[in-house]
């Protein structure tokens, strides 16, 4: 890590000591990334050196934000002065941000083998192994492999006297395949991620990418069309992850709670079946949302959102911690120095209980087993729509035929109340969430049974 950056931050903050404000902070990021994209065996390698400084000044109940891509004192001070004068002119109505004690700390996440130490031709060769496997599959008409690696160095300094730095590596890989058979078209998508250096293929082998993508594709090409209606559903860990993130998690982000989400005013109220405990944790092993400090220089700590069915807390940032009278959870995250941190999820998880998968299926005469989703969306009122990528019928307690192009809709809180069994397994998923800004997040859980979900058919 580059200690001179912390000096640059301290020096820049000193040069606005003539101004009066509640909090000023500077975040400098040095992100170096490489992307390898393979589209139908055509390979493209690209990279970026994404360096910049973001500053915030809190004054008069508002926040001024500015950024510059020029990492030198003059540009940073100019940004600070711009942020200050815009905030001062605003007369906002937000409380002072939650202030913290001075602290100096440098964090480096340990990795098995750093991405920096692996030559690019080795990475290319590993990706081409997967490419060759996929290219041979007759069912697959077209495919894309994306490999992204990021070396993140983040530096933070504030007028409170906090000087922090954190370094981590992140690798994200996705395979998208597309097929066509007898006039039916379909695609499937497999992702994997790690923050433990160059270990992605140990975590999920090329064979596993290939096998899972092909199975999903085949199911969709040959699957039955679902029957519209209300059915019992067993959700797999991937689907549970997407549900707790998309359908539920956003409702528990402090800014959206204040903005009128379905969880507004529900603190202490039973919002889910007592089998449900949902947390957002920054300390999950190998999660995309695993870090020590958020982008506001706050120690990341666990946010328990639902405990045994009762809504107990929300995810917040410094300002929303003040506004709602809570302790800061360290959920202030920014896509890059180009954006101010907002309340974001990290690793959002529904905690496992004690049922086996077979037990979850027992007693279902007819229903659906939803393995993975294809994107979703939620509204502040708690309504959700989730597209389904891989699903099967459940007939007399057994997994039956694959189903294609299923969609589920409903209301999140109603759905959480309808959970009547929670499995004992667990799996973490990796993705990027877009709430104005992209954030690398993880989400997961066990298998879960829901008594009734509205399944959309295509009449």
């Amino acid at each position, binding site marked *: 890590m580059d200690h001179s950056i912390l000096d640059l931050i301290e020096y820049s903050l000193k040069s606005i000591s003539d101004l009066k404000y509640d909090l000023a902070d500077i975040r400098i990021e040095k992100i170096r990334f490489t992307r390898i994209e393979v589209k139908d065996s055509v390979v*493209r390698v690209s*990279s970026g050196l994404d*360096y*910049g400084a973001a500053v915030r000044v809190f004054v008069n109940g508002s*926040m001024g*934000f500015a950024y510059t891509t020029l990492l030198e004192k003059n540009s940073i001070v100019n940004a600070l002065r711009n942020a200050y004068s815009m905030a001062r002119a605003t007369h906002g109505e937000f409380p002072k941000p939650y202030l913290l004690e001075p602290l100096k700390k440098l964090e480096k996440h340990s990795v098995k083998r750093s991405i920096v130490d692996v030559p690019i031709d080795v990475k290319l060769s590993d990706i081409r192994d997967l490419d060759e496997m996929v290219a041979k599959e007759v069912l697959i008409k077209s495919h894309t492999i994306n490999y992204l690696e990021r070396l993140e160095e983040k530096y933070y300094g504030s007028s409170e006297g906090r000087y922090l730095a954190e370094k981590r590596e992140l690798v994200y890989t996705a395979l998208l395949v597309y097929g066509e058979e007898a006039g039916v078209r379909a695609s499937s998508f497999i992702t994997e991620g790690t923050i433990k250096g160059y270990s992605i293929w140990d975590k999920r082998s090329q064979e596993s990418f290939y096998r899972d993508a092909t199975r999903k594709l085949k199911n969709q090409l040959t699957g039955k069309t679902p029957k519209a209606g209300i059915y019992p559903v067993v959700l797999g860990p991937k689907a549970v992850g997407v549900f707790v993130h998309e359908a539920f998690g956003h409702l528990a982000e402090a800014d959206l709670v204040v903005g009128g989400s379905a969880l507004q005013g529900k603190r202490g109220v039973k919002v889910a079946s007592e089998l449900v405990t949902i947390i957002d944790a920054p300390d999950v092993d190998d999660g995309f949302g695993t870090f020590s400090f958020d982008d506001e220089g706050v120690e990341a700590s666990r946010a328990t959102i639902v405990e045994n069915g009762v809504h107990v807390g929300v995810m917040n940032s410094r300002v929303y911690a003040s506004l709602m009278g809570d302790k800061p959870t360290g959920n202030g995250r920014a896509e890059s120095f180009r954006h101010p941190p907002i309340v974001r999820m990290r690793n959002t998880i529904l905690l496992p209980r004690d049922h086996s998968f077979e037990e979850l299926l027992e007693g279902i005469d007819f229903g659906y087993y939803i393995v993975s989703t294809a994107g979703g969306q939620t509204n502040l009122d708690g309504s959700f*729509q989730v597209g389904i990528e891989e699903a099967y019928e459940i007939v007399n307690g057994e997994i039956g035929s694959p189903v294609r192009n299923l969609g589920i809709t*409903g209301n999140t809180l109603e759905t959480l109340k309808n959970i009547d069994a929670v499995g004992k397994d667990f799996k973490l998923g990796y993705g990027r969430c877009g709430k104005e800004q992209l954030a690398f997040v993880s989400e997961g859980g066990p298998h879960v049974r829901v008594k009734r979900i509205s399944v*959309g058919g*295509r009449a």
Partner: protein
Amino acid sequence: MPYTNLLDIASLAIKWARDRGADSAEVFVQRRQGRRVDILANRISDTRYIDDVGIGVRVALGKKVGFSYTTSLSPEKVKEAIELAINQAKVSPADKYWEGLPEPSTQYTTPRDIYSSELADIDSKTLIDLVKEAIDFVRKEKNAILSRAGTSVFYEERAIANTNGVEVEDKGTHAIAVASTIIKSDTLTTPAIFEYTSSRVEKPDLLSAVKKSLERAKLCTSVSKLDKPGKYSVVFTPKAVAELFSSTIFYALRGDNVVRGRSPYHGKIGEEITSKYLTVIDDGLLVGGDNSWRFDGEGVATSRNVLVESGILRNFVFDTYWGKRIGLESTGNSVRRSYSQQPQPGYTNIVIEGGDSSLEDLLDGSVIVLYNLQGAHTANSDTGEYSVLANPGVIYKDGEPRGWLRGITVSGNIFEEVKKNISIVSREKEKAFPGIEAPWIRFDNIVVTPKA
């Protein structure tokens, strides 16, 4: 406002890339400077100032291609990016389809109304006043909350040079306003409906976006019920059209998807792919268009291309690479929003032409109007199948709104429905999102399922 000539930097970087051994090179330099004010729950949440400059470098060694970008324009950083791009090209396998960078276009037309010096020099106070006016307006409305809104103005300069002699530069300004208003009473919260306005030369019109969003929220303060699932006449508002078409029709009209066999429209030029009521144009020269520039993301002159003409497929959008892969020229549709992006085929300004009917005609009889679709991006791009939540859908009887149909789902196959189910297209068009203008479209016999 320009502090350094971006084209000079681009030309210099081309020389450096050549010196380092690149057979061909392309440099895209972009600078953006601007301000933005955001609202959250009736309050100003933050104000922003941005000063962003960077450079993207694409190089080729024979048929091996590399790309890198860096922030700042310091010679050291630019040279490091060039070095990275060249090293990547060296280790990459040859791309047999690579046929080189574009030549300079014979003529470049400057679109009208894309730059205003007043906008370029706008101060924070002007923006803050606009935002305060919008907040005051909403506070006077009972139970209304401006849940999310904002406005931004920025100045943008771009320059492109390549080893074939392309050397072009352009500048523009942008003003954007977005607003989502909800009405929250003890018994009901209306869904968040985002509305936009944008201009290249006029001050941002936040108040119009707020008013429109509020007007639509008010439609949802009374609730109605759909008795049973079935086939109904449905009106897609411009925004709903844009939402559903983006992941389906617009996906299928993109050259790269056509070449990759991902488009159902592959090989169908000259054939009828939609109802005769639909005409879809991509217009890079649209007067005041959100994405109008003299040249596209790789320095090819922009132009107006009719993609679908009264239902007949006329053309796709291509950049140089994907065009050349099937022996065609670029249509001036290489999209590059930022120096950090590699060029790829995409749209400039999409215009879906209006029809000859009034809004009254569209709302005749009993019809469900979809103001906003939730989950439209989950529509299947390959097949056109979709199942989305209308949030909100509002039922109209004889032109009068009769309440919000909570939680209704609309499903079908849009590739089929644009052929067979379109009955009326409005004269009136609206900017659905920055870069997409569309009319209101009535579809008959669309499957609508009430909330479970």
